[in-house]
């Protein structure tokens, strides 16, 4: 399929010729390559390619969306007819609503790289991953390890009747490692990954041996550690974990569709304090370490959206439809997993701005608590309507007399959206934002790449599971 602005504009013109006043055309091609070594054996050398075209038509507030992977005129014509017919079939039962007329971006973005990661010889990739996997398995105490090298190029073109004309191409590459260690009868696993938006030059420059060794050694130590006593702790959260906390504790609740439908505890709270005044949270399209997306899948610009400013809720993340219904402006947060889906409101790079404290100062006031680490954390989940979130943490440390004292195995923590961030009493200055080419954020059956991050923070109360 031709993925060009001209082609998409032609399709849009054809849609409009059929009497439609409001429409959007989105074309996408995504290629993903992965090499996986599992316990010393090459398990996957794989390449996945998806390509397609999505057509969105809005009639009296009803959305008809159709997609096709064929670029011949008959297939595209059929997809246009399906989108229009779908919208018409709902029109008598749809509720009237207005989509925002703002949010029409124009421009091109392409991640810069020196060495195209999709052009590297597969033998070179295999050698790298094999050697790293073997290095891990040679460590005493390790029983199993999985090492993966992933590279992705995701290219989209979006044009719309309200003036959007954008092209975005993101290239990213990363390596992940899962180590499983055994100590007596106890088995423990730790995994971590490192992703760069850019080219293979990052893979060549990074010290992957040190990375794999650290993850593996941590798995061994964690297998010898106990689980923390369950309870409520005062905690220092490191800058590899804080992003996951924010994503779950705040990010989903600030998505405009949750707010609109009354399934967010942040509904109706703009202008009120919902966190400590030390906390400022933004969602941004381009930030170092994050997943670069200067335009969303409606072609709206994604700049910096201030969601929380010194503890005060400033606004929500919006698509054109949620913005239109709530009298706001689109914030460039309408995204879809691929062309087989219409967009939802999603986070982009959701992170906390750094404060003034040195990291050491966060421990000075913590005579007895826990130091929650992100390395080895596997994800989180939230129910934004109930205000309850949870996420896993990697092997962490019980803190005694202001010092990380005892390693404990990774467990989950949970908290209340409206309470946890009010308890932030110190914010360090060491900002870190990360993303992953191996996963992302899941919502309503769609997965999208995201970035998240922040500095080290200290929170008054967080519930830690354990046995």
């Amino acid at each position: 399929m031709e993925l060009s602005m001209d082609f998409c504009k032609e399709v849009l013109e054809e849609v409009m010729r059929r009497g439609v006043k409001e429409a959007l055309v989105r074309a996408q091609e995504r290629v993903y390559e992965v090499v996986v070594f599992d316990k010393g054996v090459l398990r996957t050398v794989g390449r996945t390619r998806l390509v397609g075209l999505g057509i969105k038509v809005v009639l009296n507030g009803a959305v008809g969306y159709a997609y096709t992977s064929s670029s011949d005129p008959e297939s595209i014509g059929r997809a246009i007819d399906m989108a229009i017919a779908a919208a018409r079939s709902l029109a008598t039962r749809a509720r009237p609503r207005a989509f925002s007329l703002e949010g029409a971006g124009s421009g091109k973005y392409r991640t810069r790289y020196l060495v195209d990661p999709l052009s590297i010889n597969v033998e070179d990739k295999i050698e790298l991953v094999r050697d790293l996997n073997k290095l891990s398995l040679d460590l005493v105490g390790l029983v199993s390890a999985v090492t993966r090298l992933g590279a992705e190029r995701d290219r989209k073109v979006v044009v719309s009747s309200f003036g959007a004309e954008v092209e975005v191409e993101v290239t990213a590459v990363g390596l992940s490692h899962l180590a499983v260690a055994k100590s007596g009868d106890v088995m423990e696993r730790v995994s971590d990954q490192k992703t760069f938006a850019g080219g293979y030059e990052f893979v060549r420059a990074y010290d992957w041996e040190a990375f794999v060794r650290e993850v593996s050694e941590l798995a061994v130590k964690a297998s010898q550690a106990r689980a923390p006593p369950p309870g409520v702790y005062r905690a220092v959260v490191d800058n590899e974990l804080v992003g996951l906390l924010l994503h779950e504790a705040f990010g989903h609740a600030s998505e405009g569709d949750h707010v609109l439908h009354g399934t967010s505890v942040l509904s109706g709270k703009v202008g009120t304090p919902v966190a400590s005044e030390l906390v400022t949270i933004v969602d941004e399209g381009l930030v170092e370490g994050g997943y670069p997306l200067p335009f969303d899948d409606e072609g709206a610009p994604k700049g910096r959206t201030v969601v929380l400013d010194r503890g005060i809720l400033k606004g929500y993340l919006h698509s054109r439809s949620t913005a239109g219904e709530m009298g706001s402006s689109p914030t460039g947060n309408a995204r879809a997993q691929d062309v087989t889906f219409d967009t939802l409101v999603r986070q982009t790079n959701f992170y906390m701005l750094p404060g003034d404290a040195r990291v050491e100062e966060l421990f000075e006031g913590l005579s007895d608590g826990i130091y929650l680490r992100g390395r080895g954390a596997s994800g989180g989940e939230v129910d934004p309507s109930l205000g309850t979130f949870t996420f896993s943490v990697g092997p962490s440390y019980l803190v005694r007399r202001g010092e990380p004292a005892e390693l404990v195995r990774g467990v989950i923590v949970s908290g209340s959206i409206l309470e946890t961030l009010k308890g932030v009493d110190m914010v360090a200055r060491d900002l870190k934002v990360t993303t992953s080419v191996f996963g992302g954020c899941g919502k309503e059956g769609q997965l999208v790449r995201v970035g998240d991050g922040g500095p080290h923070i200290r929170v008054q109360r967080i519930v830690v599971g354990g046995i």
Partner: protein
Amino acid sequence: MEMAALAERGVRRAEELGASEAELYVVRERLVRIEGVACGLERVECGEEVTAVARVLVGRRLALQSSVIAVEEDVYRLVEGALRVARASEEDPHWHSLPKTLGKSPTVDLVDPRIAEGEVDHFAEIVSRAVSLPTAIDRRARAVRARVAASRIERAVANSYQSPVSEVSTYFNFSITVKASDERGESTYYGYHEAPTLREFNMEAVVEEATRVAVGTIGAKAVPAGGYQALFMPRFFASLLSSLLVPAVRADLVQRERSPLRGRLYSQVLSGQLTIIDDGCAPNMVGSGAFDEEGVPTRRKVVFDGGVLTTYLYDTYTANIEGRASTGNARRSGGSNVHPDATNIIVLPGTSPLESLVREVRRGLVIYDAIGSWLSNYVSGLMNATITHAYYVENGEVRHPVKGVVISGNVYTILREGLVAVSREVELVSNYLVPAAMVSEVTVASE
């Protein structure tokens, strides 16, 4: 493009180009999704897509490629690309062969003509009716969102050893989010039904259950930390089985020393009250098909027989390593290689009525749903979940709804010596058909 013929032509092309073995797995999916909110319908998404996944070997060098297919030539480009990579790849010393026997098990109730037709109006009507129901059931409740997804799926597998196998099936998913509020606060609950056909779909029952739990959990609060009895209702029980037990019985994870059940075949792993079956051809369950995802006929097998572990779940690769037959459990996810996984999990019911189990709770939690159970650690068996919908029960009486506490424990302790009873009622939860399970103790961490 006819799927079986397309798959077979792809295999032949790979062999012509020098592959020693080749397999094509092709799927055509045509789907409709409809979404509505309380005041009306909002969106229809529809379309059709063909995808193909090729496994191509040169000796023991394997490469995997998948692609969306628009024209037949895309399949040929796919196998050409896979062959190039296979030639440059490294040998897998454990590789034996692709499945030498493809076939189909008899199945029933996997195709519904109403779904296959993909009639938008029919499903729009379901969503329209659903969003008006919660308020009619209880004035404190309203529908937040309801959705229907309906697909017709045609899939085929061909490989170098046998003629292709193919089948058509359908898929239906209805879901509704209900919010309830009164002077005590708010709560939201999510109900759904997922099956190949509409045969057992009772929209009113799904909405009624979601409304009942949403209303019943208004004003939910924490309970003090400590040990509690727990009654795992089917949805929560299914999530624990899925995140902790199923990975532990996957033969690939056992062989690669990532399962705590390695070396535990024929030992008492769970309570004698638990018999757990994996059945790839169960009627009207979403994990069913005539063949697994590498074309091997599916079948029913007892995984835990009265708590004794009797088999792991195998695909052809892991079965060949042990010189045994595949159990028909090959699955594919994303761009990864074929691996074993559960098809449908059926836990045989017990003899205790659910009502009597609740009455036996002296001090405990009746748990409907939680978040984060999938974050539990299957390697260690450590269960962790944050409760979102539960009731605190004392001496058989419900005292108040509960949310926001973390429960944990070792799943093998909880489901072996800790299992008290299993209900005689079962519930369909996606590809799980499970009863409720009463356990003697879980640890609660709380504010």
